[in-house]
């Protein structure tokens, strides 16, 4: 370092160094702008929803009645609906996504893996309104007439599968969300699995393991927390997805129990009613549940980042 210093000085404290300063400064400004945007959004949400928090306090989170006529707002059904729909999506998308990622990174030859990866990422490019329309006209009638009636007949004794099913509802929303988060889960999981050092695989092969054993016993455990992170990032998208969910979730007002119940997520409630919200505390309360959603999503994303960064350093023991 000490020998290099004079050379740097020789290069000229003029142009290069000025460019350095400008570059460093502008990266700081733009980097800061991203943080500032988040800060401004959060601040606006807090300020605009303050009257609702003052009026209702924790009732906004714990109460179940959302009644614009009487100007009383409790968002528990929407919070539950948000988490419930996201959980269904995760239960469906995680196994499919992780197995697809294992196939792509461990088994598929390049000429299969590359087009398949591309196709899966294309899934993320379908506008959510289009997926929603497909959900209304194709998926929900299909679910109602086939899967749902079978579920009710076989598992109907469980409260989660109590009928009847009208097609639209939490289950349909969960399936739609699963499709939408699948690309996230597959591409991140594949990335994490590919970053597992080859020495892991070679050691297992050296012990005489099959490819299946290598994938499941050497690669997957090594990448475990990264795969969990991928699922949580998918969950983040599922929590905030609006348009497609609004179209198939049925927009019910009660806390959902069965997957066939009509429910509402926070994002769909805001999207559907904000435009006509007026008077009293309705607008402020809608902003308040937006703040709740922001906090939920932030916490999950932080958790996901932590898990993914640990995965890159190595396995959890």
């Amino acid at each position, binding site marked *: 370092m000490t020998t290099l210093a004079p050379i740097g000085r020789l290069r000229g404290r003029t142009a290069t160094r000025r460019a350095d300063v400008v570059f460093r400064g502008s990266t700081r400004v733009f980097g800061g702008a991203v943080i500032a945007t988040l800060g401004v959004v959060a601040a606006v949400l807090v300020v605009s929803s303050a009257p609702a928090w003052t009026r209702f306090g924790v009732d906004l989170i714990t109460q179940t*009645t*959302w*009644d*614009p*006529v*009487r100007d009383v707002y409790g968002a528990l059904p929407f919070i539950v609906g948000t988490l419930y729909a996201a959980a269904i999506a995760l239960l469906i998308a995680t196994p499919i996504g992780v197995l697809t990622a294992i196939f792509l990174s461990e088994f598929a030859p390049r000429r299969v893996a590359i087009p398949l990866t591309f196709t899966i990422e294309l899934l993320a490019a379908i506008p959510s309104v289009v997926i929603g329309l497909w959900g*209304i*006209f194709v998926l*929900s*009638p299909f679910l109602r007439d086939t899967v749902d009636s079978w579920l009710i007949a076989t598992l109907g004794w469980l409260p989660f599968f109590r009928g*009847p099913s*009208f*097609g*639209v509802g939490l289950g349909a929303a969960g399936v739609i969300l699963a499709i939408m988060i699948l690309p996230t889960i597959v591409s991140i999981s594949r990335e994490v699995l590919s970053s597992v050092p080859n020495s892991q695989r070679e050691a297992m092969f050296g012990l005489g393991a099959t490819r299946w054993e290598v994938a499941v016993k050497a690669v997957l455990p090594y990448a475990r927390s990264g795969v969990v992170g991928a699922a949580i990032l998918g969950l983040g998208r599922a929590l905030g997805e609006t348009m497609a969910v*609004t*179209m198939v979730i*049925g*927009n*019910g*007002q009660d806390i959902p129990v069965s997957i066939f119940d*009509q429910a*509402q997520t926070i994002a769909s409630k805001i999207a*559907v*009613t904000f*435009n*006509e*919200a*007026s*008077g*009293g505390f309705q607008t402020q309360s809608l902003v308040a549940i937006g703040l709740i959603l922001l906090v939920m999503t932030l916490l999950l994303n932080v958790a996901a980042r932590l898990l993914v960064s640990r995965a890159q350093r190595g396995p959890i023991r």
Partner: protein
Amino acid sequence: MIITSPGRLSALALAAAFAVGACSGSASPSPAASTAPGASAAASPGLGGPAAPSGDVSLAGAGATFPGPLYQVWVEKYAAAHPNVKIDYQAIGSGGGIKNITAQTVAFGASDATMKDAEIAALPAGTKILHIPTALGAVVFIYNLPGVTELNLDGPTAADIFLGTIKKWNDPKIAALNSSATLPGADIVVVHRSDGSGTTNAFTTYLGAVSDGWKNGPGVGKEVNWPTGIGAKGNDGVAGGVKQTPGAIGYVELNYATQAALATAKLKNADGAFVAASVDGVTAAADASVATFPADFRAAPIINGAGAATYPIAAYTYLLVYADQKDQVKGQALVSFVYWALTDGQADEAGLGYAPLPKAVQDKALAELHTITSGGTPIWP
């Protein structure tokens, strides 16, 4: 409320695109118009109505989606007669119309529900807004019950269905009204609006009027706490939900039901007759209620009006305009347009599924137009 069928949607999009494009070219009145506004010569064709300004003027309006198709036709026809007046109407919803006119970002607003006292109190000091009725609509029950082509309902039964206390189609209360029909034992699926809407306001006003259980339960408003059912966005969402779900019942605006050709229920009116929703039935309701039309024009939905042909759920839709116009030329254009809409424009209504104003209400609305001023001077004395 969303405007729906592909044909109408694309027509609207085209009209909107045209109007926006046209507006950008003439965003401000020409100097000639603003210096000599009174010197305009072009009058409304035919009648002795208010004169339109002679210079280029553009008016922006926003609000209810329910009269959107009607207003688009009006805007096009009026623009054909007055090429110098550009009017742009954005169908963003009644609440949006009230918000925009309150914020003074539009020349006129539009709303299905009248402004509440609290909304009027929220206006900037010294601002007065007039409600000008332009048309009437009705709320219609639509249903999907294979094999049942005719369905009769009365108020209390409808309220019980939407309260979720009547759960099956062969419930004795429904069967008693439909002795000739074979009702299946299927579950009733209620489909309601998930967004706030003037349609819901008229509909819940009806349910509240016929059922104490509804009045003390979900209550009356643009958005209520629905006790049961599937929520769908817009008239098209409700219609789509009903079409796709066997056993479903929902409610939409009359003009929507007319154009989408949905199975609609007959509703028992105050005289005990079961009437299908129609423009005539709405006109009958409006005629029967003109005596009680309020002085401030803020008429509640017309529920259970008298008369054998009267349909029980009808409601006015309104333009919202400032009583005192800041810009004399724009005010002149607005008064001229509204006058045209209230007179010549009424002929367009029935064909689009709207009911024209009764003569007495039309006269009152025209009289109200005379009171619009600019800087204290009446625009159309």
